[in-house]
């Protein structure tokens, strides 16, 4: 799919309170961006800045600008490692600067400045290598000119240029102002990969010391003199409107400055958070019942399952699935359901904004600085060039922070009160007004021949549209590919989020659900739910074919060696096929997304009395292509497995009376330390194309657990989460 130009303004007008980001449906040619002459002239006086990615000053510091945002995935270290390596800088020289919002900082894989889709390292790797190499070439030239020797006789090493014959040496700090006057080479030679000094080595993260001392500034930690605090009273049900509220009582609370009714709720702005919260209580808002008063969990599940019987849009038709199923020796059919899941990042949504005459500043923990800029411009009424986005550290992202609703809140209130304003969402608001991982229903019918080969597969999916709030123009013919990720993807997608099995006759149909609940990407987007369905069903088929689940998978992955190899590796590392302790179950699953391939084996026990699942061990094999920081990769996979296990075992948003009932961690339960198993991560050495790693560890987890529960108990559970009650009732059946 080619890029879909959208008028952001037109789009924002329609869905201001929702979101305004464009999504990655196109690939731009990657290149490192040179600075133009006028920009360089200004910079040349004080620093060497051959492109937008780094600068060197006479104090010998190398400051790297990172376009992606840091939310724990280690990008403030991985991207500087790439530059430092090609530049031949000394790691001790490196300082990191969070990049501003700007079109020039777009990730080539996404065609936007978003930190999503596990795209940072794979997207910026090429441009940053070239940027660093250009700097190295220019510093060598500057030294050669200084010494009046041929460039070939000079070499760059750890922040210096040396003249090989004479042993003379100049630091980058000494050379930088001279280098600044040279022409930037268009196609500088890159290092050989065997010469990498930092890339491929486990480098300690640069942001960790600040995070350990307590000095790191997250969005919620930022403050300004004379800053006001604002909280919102928001509707308890979808579409609910206020019938009445006591503005006077709220404004009578000490410290309350202003009550501001807005489309997304009633804001109370005060001199302290305490006053704002007390003012909100005093508002005593009465709301109407909203647009879907009957909506609760049962309504949602019934609606999504009933929609499976309605006609949808054809997504894929390959071969003749009808004929194949007619000829199948064995056919099986199953219906699956996945509920809504909350992001619940540890730092709740928040934003500080200061709208002044002719200027708007925003300090936000956002995954989409460029989106924030468009939104702040639109809400403040100021032109883009008057809007400055300052991205702080993010207290986890998970996809939630690409949605700019919290930015709209702060800019709006600051515009009204004319002072800097920090908007804080309480945890209750953070959960109730989340845009969740979408619930979905699936029905599959598939057949195998007498050799146990998969010959036909019909797959129907019903899901709310993930792209509706992101890039509605990319939902074409009723098909939302982000809802289908892992099963089907955009034709030319850079993410390759497709089913990897060889299925000669294959049919996929999709229907959009019209449930009013906002949804958004959640770590791995719908690869997670879709992999749960596909990999559980593959296990069902293996069982029907009388084959070992590993063998059955390998049999259908002969044309996909990367998937094949991670399965083989994980099986070997986890002793697949060897006996396991009595009473335990073992399950396997694989999935590929965002260009990486991951397989997992799970060992667990099921308490047959109370249905509790205890996961003992998870073994992971991952092929994400060339590796930049292996320690971060392991940490990311640990984290992905842990949150995926949390959602598989425990998480489901509760709804009642047309709105969200879940509100805090006491009724939205997430994984605890006692529930986290041993996690063993094996990185499969690979020279294949680089993939992402923030998300691909998520999808295989839920099906591997489900398959292990089946292995332990004989009960197949086709609905998440695997709560004790659900497991117990499945065993009893």
């Amino acid at each position: 799919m080619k890029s879909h130009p959208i008028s952001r303004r037109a789009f924002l007008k329609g869905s201001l309170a929702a979101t305004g980001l464009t999504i990655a449906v196109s690939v731009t040619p990657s290149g490192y961006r040179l600075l133009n002459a006028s920009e360089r002239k200004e910079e040349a006086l004080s620093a060497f800045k051959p492109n937008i990615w780094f600068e060197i000053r006479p104090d010998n510091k190398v400051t790297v600008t990172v376009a992606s945002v840091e939310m724990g995935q280690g990008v403030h270290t991985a991207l500087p490692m790439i530059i430092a390596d090609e530049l031949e800088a000394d790691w001790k020289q490196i300082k990191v600067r969070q990049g501003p919002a700007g079109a020039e900082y777009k990730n080539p894989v996404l065609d936007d400045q978003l930190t999503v889709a596990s795209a940072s390292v794979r997207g910026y790797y090429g441009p940053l290598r070239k940027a660093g190499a250009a700097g190295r070439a220019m510093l060598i030239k500057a030294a050669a000119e200084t010494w009046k020797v041929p460039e070939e006789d000079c070499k760059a090493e750890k922040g210096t240029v040396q003249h090989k014959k004479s042993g003379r040496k100049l630091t980058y700090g000494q050379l930088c102002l001279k280098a600044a006057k040279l022409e930037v080479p268009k196609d500088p030679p890159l290092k050989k990969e065997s010469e990498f000094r930092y890339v491929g080595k486990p480098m300690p993260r640069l942001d960790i010391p600040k995070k350990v001392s307590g000095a790191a500034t997250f969005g919620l930690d930022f403050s300004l003199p004379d800053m006001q605090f604002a909280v919102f009273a928001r509707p308890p049900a979808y579409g609910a409107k206020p019938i009445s509220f006591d503005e006077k009582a709220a404004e009578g609370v000490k410290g309350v400055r202003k009550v501001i009714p807005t489309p997304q709720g009633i804001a109370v702005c005060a001199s302290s958070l305490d006053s704002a919260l007390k003012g909100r209580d005093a508002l005593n808002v009465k709301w109407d019942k909203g647009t879907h008063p009957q909506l609760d969990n049962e309504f949602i599940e019934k609606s999504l399952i009933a929609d499976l019987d309605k006609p949808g849009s054809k997504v894929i038709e390959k071969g003749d699935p009808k004929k194949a199923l007619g000829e199948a020796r064995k056919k099986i059919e199953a219906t699956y359901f996945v509920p809504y899941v909350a992001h619940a990042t540890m730092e709740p949504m928040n934003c500080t904004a200061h709208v002044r005459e002719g200027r708007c500043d925003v300090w936000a923990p956002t995954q989409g600085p460029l989106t924030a800029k468009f939104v702040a411009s639109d809400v403040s009424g100021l032109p883009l060039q008057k809007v400055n986005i300052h991205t702080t550290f993010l207290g986890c992202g998970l996809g939630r922070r690409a949605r700019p609703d919290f930015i709209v809140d702060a800019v709006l209130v600051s515009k009204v009160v004319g002072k800097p304003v920090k908007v804080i969402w309480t945890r209750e608001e953070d959960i109730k007004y989340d845009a969740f991982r979408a619930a979905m229903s699936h029905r599959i019918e598939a057949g195998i021949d007498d050799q146990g080969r998969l010959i036909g597969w019909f797959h129907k999916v019903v899901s709310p549209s993930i792209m509706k709030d992101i890039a509605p123009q990319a939902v074409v013919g009723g098909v939302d590919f982000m809802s289908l990720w892992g099963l089907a993807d955009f034709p030319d997608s850079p993410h390759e989020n497709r089913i990897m099995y060889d299925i000669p006759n294959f049919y996929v149909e999709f229907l959009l659900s019209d449930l009013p609940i906002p949804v958004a990407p959640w770590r791995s987007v719908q690869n997670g739910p879709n992999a749960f369905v596909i990999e559980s069903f593959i296990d069902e088929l293996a069982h029907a074919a009388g084959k070992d689940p590993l063998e059955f998978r390998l049999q259908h992955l002969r044309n996909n060696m990367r998937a094949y190899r991670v399965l083989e590796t994980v099986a070997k590392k986890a002793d697949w096929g060897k006996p396991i302790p009595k009473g335990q179950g073992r399950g396997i699953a694989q999935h590929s997304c965002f260009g990486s391939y991951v397989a997992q084996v799970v060992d667990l026990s099921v308490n047959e009395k109370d249905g509790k699942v205890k996961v003992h061990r998870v073994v992971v094999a991952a092929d994400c292509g060339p590796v930049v920081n292996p320690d971060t990769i392991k940490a990311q996979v640990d984290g992905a497995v842990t949150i995926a296990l949390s959602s598989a075992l425990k998480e489901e948003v509760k709804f009642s009376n047309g709105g969200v009932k879940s509100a805090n961690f006491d009724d939205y339960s997430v994984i605890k330390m006692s529930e986290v198993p041993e996690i063993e991560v094996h990185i499969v050495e690979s020279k294949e194309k680089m993939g992402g790693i923030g998300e691909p560890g998520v999808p295989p987890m839920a099906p591997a657990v489900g398959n292990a529960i089946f292995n332990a108990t004989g009960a197949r559970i086709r609905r998440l989460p695997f709560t004790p009650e659900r497991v117990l009732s499945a065993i009893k059946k």
Partner: protein
Amino acid sequence: MISLNVNGKNYRVDVPDDVPLLWVLRDYLKLTGTKYGCGIGECGSCTVHINGKAERSCVIPIKEVRGKKIITIEGLPENHPVKRAWIKEQVPQCGYCQPGVMMQVAALLSEIRKPDAERIINAMDNMICRCGTHTRIKKGIKTAVQIARKEGRV
């Protein structure tokens, strides 16, 4: 006016006496290392030491800590075994919950030099981390115990 002792320093703040300690630390004393995560004492991101014990500052009204000694993440020495272990094992991801987690671990280790697995789970089970650093937190605790033992401290 309420008098407070935080990280060895005396402060006087003019706030209503029902305001949680957390917000006084963050918004009045600008000690923002202590984090807001839930406001109901469920997640542990706001954990500080009050008279040497790990407590959840989001549910403690400021009036209850008059005359007590409060230590926040900023007051835990930079060379404390927990802080050093957290860097050595590269524990944090986003890092938001970690100050609370580290304060919980520091309190545990000051009570018991070498906690067994059960004691660790008991102390840590009600801490929430959404990045999934649990595995490294366990590693970090082991390393902190080793550092402390080598140096005869904690």
